[in-house]
């Protein structure tokens, strides 16, 4: 409270000083409306403040003067010399009282009544004469002054300069032999610089009390508007916070409290029915925890209906049904921070327009803070604002990527892991990847990729910095190196730098070089990683066991279909010139480095300059798969719906509500891979001049792993396929497969297969592959 009184005194005195000239001018020209207004505003302000501080004498004086001046303003009374005198008398008395308060001396005698009487229209001359200003008293020394933040900033900058200069000097002194006296002097300078820095930092600090002071009045007003009874408990007003920070959290705090009274706390009747006391309890508290200030706003009202929020989020398309099913309670509650969601049934003048909580979160995050919500339906809500202790000095971590240093606020860092460490599994693909850490999955974002700088370290050599954001979302940031933890003096960055959305500010390193402070949330947004989704997956992943879930890579195929491939099979993703693709030997091949790989994914050479190629591997063989566009990595749970026909697509899975075709790796490798060296494969002979077999059947036979030749081209074969109407050729065949054109067999003894009975054909071919080698060897 002392702080506030100090502010009041300083403000009043400042206004009185500024008013001095006005009063004199008004005296000379009582009709001057502008002067009158200025004086009226002053007494009005003093009156307002006095009511707050319980200062009855100042209140009485200013109230009387305000009434009289209001009459003049409304034209009921004209400003004559007597009135001017009387008002001046009151102003002087206000000045005296304020000075007495400030100096801690006894206030002048209580003859305020005479001064007030002098204001009235009918008064005799003596009274007026008895009210001259008494300005001769010695002024008490000022205990508080008002400064512009600009000036404080300049002082802060000056001290930072000093610190840097001291560091530089210390470096130079180390290099040369120094006398003990010099060293001592330097130590002294060093110590006093530290002291001044500390003091200046303190000038920016203010008690949270200033933030809490208007709350009782606000809660009372809200209560009477809404017809509710609310008991407000305030705790921890003596915690200190950066002045600028206090300004930044004023609006979020107000908003949360409005919501609590308007929506949280029930009407007295409803509370009685619920077995609660009629008056709702609203508790606002502040406390320091480490380098953070925690501000809690808790009520015992009806709480947040998480399911209603989910329903609404579903309705707005913010989440999918699938996500909703896997969301833990906290995540559902955190939906309250999504834009456009309000569970209030009716829009009131106080709150509930569906704007606000998202703004609250944005404001708190802008100053490097976090906001959490916890609620039990029917028992109330608790919001926790976590804000850094000071806006200007924050502990940070210096990391390096692409040869450049960056700072990360330490409050956002969970832990730092080395990719090669035990228990860390990274499935990484050209920067997009997933790390599995103690059963949790996090998206990996490579800092150099987000920033578009060069990658300096070899894949696998990076360090992962695990970053958390509001609502429990987290991701891993891959950086080349991690340097020191440092206390950073953070300054706002210019709009040109902030426009990137990646940085939270700038700071200077120990050598006085500028370093950019990264914005963890901005990095995630930029790289297109949805923290919400990952977080949901984490919880599900840890709960349901990992074997159910597998990471997949989403891409668009050249046929335009949305497809996915199991991530572990993807060895690398490369962008290559389309000219490296050649049609040779009846299929497409691609030159990658020194290798020639079979190319799947397209039937003709794509008509574009560059092609993205997935290098798929089964551990031995490698196949290139051309894709139109690589989209994302997600994890898939549940089995896909299998396809009717075997082929490139194994089945269809649901990813974010869309059908995605899942590649059949087995089919692709069996089809495109050199599954067995050419000569080693079983041989199948087809009749000469049978066009149908050549065009229709041959691919199927080949895909089953046979070499195909014509009758007459080889003396022996593992399998001979003939039309049942034709004569069986004279070939040393291990097996003969007869095909008929008629779907119905001709009799019980007919061992031929209908030529479109795919299953039976494959069955025959399959069983053929298991028998033939021995047979061939014998032959």
């Amino acid at each position, binding site marked *: 409270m002392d702080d506030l009184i100090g502010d009041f005194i300083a403000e009043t005195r400042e206004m009185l000083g500024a008013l001095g000239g006005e009063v004199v001018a008004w005296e000379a020209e009582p009709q001057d409306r502008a002067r009158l207004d200025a004086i009226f505003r002053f007494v009005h302000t003093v009156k307002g403040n006095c009511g707050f501080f319980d200062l009855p004498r100042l209140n009485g004086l200013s109230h009387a003067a305000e009434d009289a001046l209001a009459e003049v303003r409304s034209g009921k009374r004209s400003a004559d010399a007597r009135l001017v005198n009387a008002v001046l008398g009151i102003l002087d008395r206000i000045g005296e009282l304020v000075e007495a308060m400030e100096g801690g001396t006894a206030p002048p005698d209580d003859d305020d009544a005479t001064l007030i009487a002098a204001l009235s229209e009918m008064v005799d001359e003596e009274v007026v004469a008895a009210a001259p200003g008494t300005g001769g008293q010695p002024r008490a020394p000022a205990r508080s002054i008002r400064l512009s933040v600009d000036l404080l900033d300049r002082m802060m900058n000056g001290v930072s300069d000093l610190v840097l200069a001291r560091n530089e000097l210390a470096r130079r002194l180390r290099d040369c032999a120094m006398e003990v006296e010099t060293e001592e002097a330097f130590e002294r300078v060093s110590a006093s610089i530290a002291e001044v820095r500390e003091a200046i930092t303190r000038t920016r600090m203010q008690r949270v009390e200033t933030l809490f002071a208007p709350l009782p009045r606000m809660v009372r007003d809200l209560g009477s508007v809404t017809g509710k009874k609310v008991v407000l408990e305030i705790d921890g007003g003596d915690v200190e916070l950066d002045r600028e920070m206090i300004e930044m959290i004023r609006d979020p705090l107000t908003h949360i409290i409005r919501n609590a009274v308007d929506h949280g706390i029930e009407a007295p009747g409803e509370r009685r029915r619920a077995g609660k006391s009629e008056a709702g309890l609203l508790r606002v508290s502040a406390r320091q925890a480490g380098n953070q200030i925690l501000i809690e706003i808790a009520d015992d009202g009806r709480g947040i209906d998480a399911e209603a929020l989910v329903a609404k989020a579903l309705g707005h398309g913010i989440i999918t049904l699938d996500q909703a099913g896997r969301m833990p309670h906290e995540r559902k509650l955190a939906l309250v921070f999504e834009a456009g969601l309000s569970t209030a049934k009716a829009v009131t003048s106080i709150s509930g327009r569906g704007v606000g909580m998202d703004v609250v979160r944005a404001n708190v995050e802008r100053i490097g803070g976090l906001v959490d919500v916890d609620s039990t339906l029917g028992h109330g809500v608790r919001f926790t604002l976590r804000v850094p202790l000071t806006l200007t000095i924050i502990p940070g971590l210096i990391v390096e990527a*692409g040869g450049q240093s960056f700072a990360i606020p330490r409050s956002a860092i969970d832990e730092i892991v080395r990719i090669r460490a035990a228990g860390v599994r990274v499935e990484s693909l050209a920067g997009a990847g997933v790390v599995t850490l103690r059963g949790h999955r996090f998206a990996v974002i490579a800092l150099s990729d987000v*920033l578009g700088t060069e990658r300096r370290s070899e894949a696998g050599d990076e360090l992962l910095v695990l970053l958390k954001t509001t609502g429990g979302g987290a991701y891993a940031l891959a950086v080349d190196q991690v340097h020191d933890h440092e206390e950073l003096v953070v300054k706002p960055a210019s*709009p*040109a*730098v902030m426009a*990137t959305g*990646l*940085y939270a500010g*700038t700071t*200077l390193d120990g050598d006085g070089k500028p370093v950019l402070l990264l914005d963890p949330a901005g990095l995630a947004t930029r790289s297109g990683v949805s923290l919400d989704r990952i977080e949901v997956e984490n919880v599900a992943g840890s709960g349901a066991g990992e074997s159910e879930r597998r990471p997949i890579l989403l891409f668009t195929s050249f046929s335009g279909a949305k497809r996915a491939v199991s991530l572990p099979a993807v060895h690398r993703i490369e962008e290559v010139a389309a000219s490296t693709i050649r049609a040779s030997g009846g299929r497409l091949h691609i030159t990658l480095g020194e290798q020639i790989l079979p190319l799947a994914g397209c039937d003709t050479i794509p008509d574009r300059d560059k092609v993205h190629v997935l290098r798929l591997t089964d551990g031995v063989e490698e196949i290139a798969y051309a894709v139109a566009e690589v989209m994302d990595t997600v994890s898939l749970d549940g089995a896909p719906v299998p396809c009717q026909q075997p082929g490139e697509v194994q089945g269809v899975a649901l990813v974010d509500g869309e059908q995605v075709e899942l590649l059949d790796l087995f089919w692709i490798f069996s089809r495109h891979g050199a599954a067995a060296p050419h000569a080693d494969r079983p041989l199948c002979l087809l009749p000469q001049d049978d066009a149908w077999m050549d065009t229709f059947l041959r691919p199927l036979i080949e895909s089953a792993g046979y070499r195909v030749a014509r009758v007459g081209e080889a003396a022996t074969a593992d399998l001979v396929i003939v039309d049942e109407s034709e004569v069986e050729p004279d070939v040393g065949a291990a097996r003969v497969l007869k095909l008929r054109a008629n779907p119905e067999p001709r009799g019980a003894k007919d061992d031929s297969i209908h030529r479109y009975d795919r299953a039976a054909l494959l069955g025959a071919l399959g069983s053929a592959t298991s028998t033939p080698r021995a047979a061939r060897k014998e032959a």
Partner: protein
Amino acid sequence: MAELLLLVSLAGEQVAVRASEVESVVEIEGLTPVPRAGGHVAGLTALRSRVLTVIDCMASLQPGLRIEGPRDAMVVVADGHPYALLVDRVEDVVEASGEIAPVPASLSAGWTRVATGYVPVEGTLFLLADVHALIAGPLAEAA
């Protein structure tokens, strides 16, 4: 009183800037790049303990161009943020000898945005450049 002007050379032109808008003239040493920032943002530099955003005025005039060689820069504070505007060379401080005249419409694209008028100095006309337009860079045009 005649207005003081700072003459700089930029993209082959002699350009005047209101001296009242320029805090000081410095030589830039050491730049910290700002990845993903607009092309006209050359980086950050520290002037004592202040962090200046360095604007490449060539890139600001025409995207893709860069200031080469000498590192003369004007220190300007705009909207509370300090900037260093890189120019080819800082020439001189002179007094304007007349009123500022409006720009004819025939300037090339970049200059149309940056120049606020012509100002006569001892019988010669100079383009008067707006530091805020230089800081905003070419993107502001599209916005």
